[in-house]
């Protein structure tokens, strides 16, 4: 499994990577992007199975990224997870229409993120 983390905070990306490693789920590669545009460029050139994206990012927001992905069949097999400080009902409703598998609100306990990984990894195996 190849994972892409899109978040403008390098420390948040590091924390997410640490949790991924602690799960001991086999991961081929963890890629990083500082905004939605960087993430899209990676997705256009690399086969990624799991996208973890923030919403509030410069250049291109996570919402714009997800709308772009949802508009094409090309990324149909990509599992999308939002990790954001924006836990508003309106944002969650919007995400539900953008093929988002899970919405994780910051702050979260690391074990909650671990459970998300295990859930996604389990469904990718089946």
């Amino acid at each position: 499994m190849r994972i892409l983390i899109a978040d403008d905070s390098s420390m948040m990306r590091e924390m997410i990577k640490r949790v991924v490693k602690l799960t001991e789920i086999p991961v081929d590669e963890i890629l990083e992007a500082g905004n939605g545009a960087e993430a899209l460029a990676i997705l256009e050139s690399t086969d990624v199975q799991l996208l973890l994206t923030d919403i509030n990012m410069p250049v291109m927001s996570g919402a714009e990224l997800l709308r772009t992905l949802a508009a094409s069949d090309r990324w149909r097999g990509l599992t999308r997870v939002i990790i954001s400080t924006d836990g508003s009902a309106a944002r969650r409703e919007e995400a539900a229409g953008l093929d988002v598998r899970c919405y994780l609100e910051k702050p979260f306990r690391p074990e909650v993120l671990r459970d998300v990984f295990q859930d996604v990894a389990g469904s990718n195996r089946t």
Partner: protein
Amino acid sequence: MSSRTLPGLIGPETGAAVFGALRTVAERSFFAAAERCDEAAFDALAATVPAWLVSSVRFEEGESAGSMSCSLPDALAERLFHAFTGRDPSEAPPAWADVHDLVGEFANMVCGAWLSGSAGGRTFTLGQPGVVRARAAAAGGGLRLRVVIDDAPIAIALEMDAGRRAAKSGA
């Protein structure tokens, strides 16, 4: 854009909501307990702080906008860094750029958690956090919260922009 405090629209319930957000962030992401602190106790702790890191984030929610800043001592920022990243404190000290990033993310999470609980279900946007070093905690002219985490002081300042309706904060 000028920023002016709207004292009538930032009340005690706002302070409780912001403190609730801070406590949640501290517990869930930094494994730390936050407690409110009176002015005298805060000032006594603040007098021992040689330098502060002040992280400010702007927010917009509908017709409301403003900024929130979190001021904390360097030493506490480093402790929070180790708690957040899982690094061993005995390792080499973190780069200041990483500590600044972490302090910015801290303010981002506190502001986001407050707005998520206060904005009546509406979406909001947060700007990029800006972090500076200062000799004193940010005072601001609006709401000011005095908090202690691990015996170290943290000050939260919240200001709403003039000319906009303030966020409802009683949720």
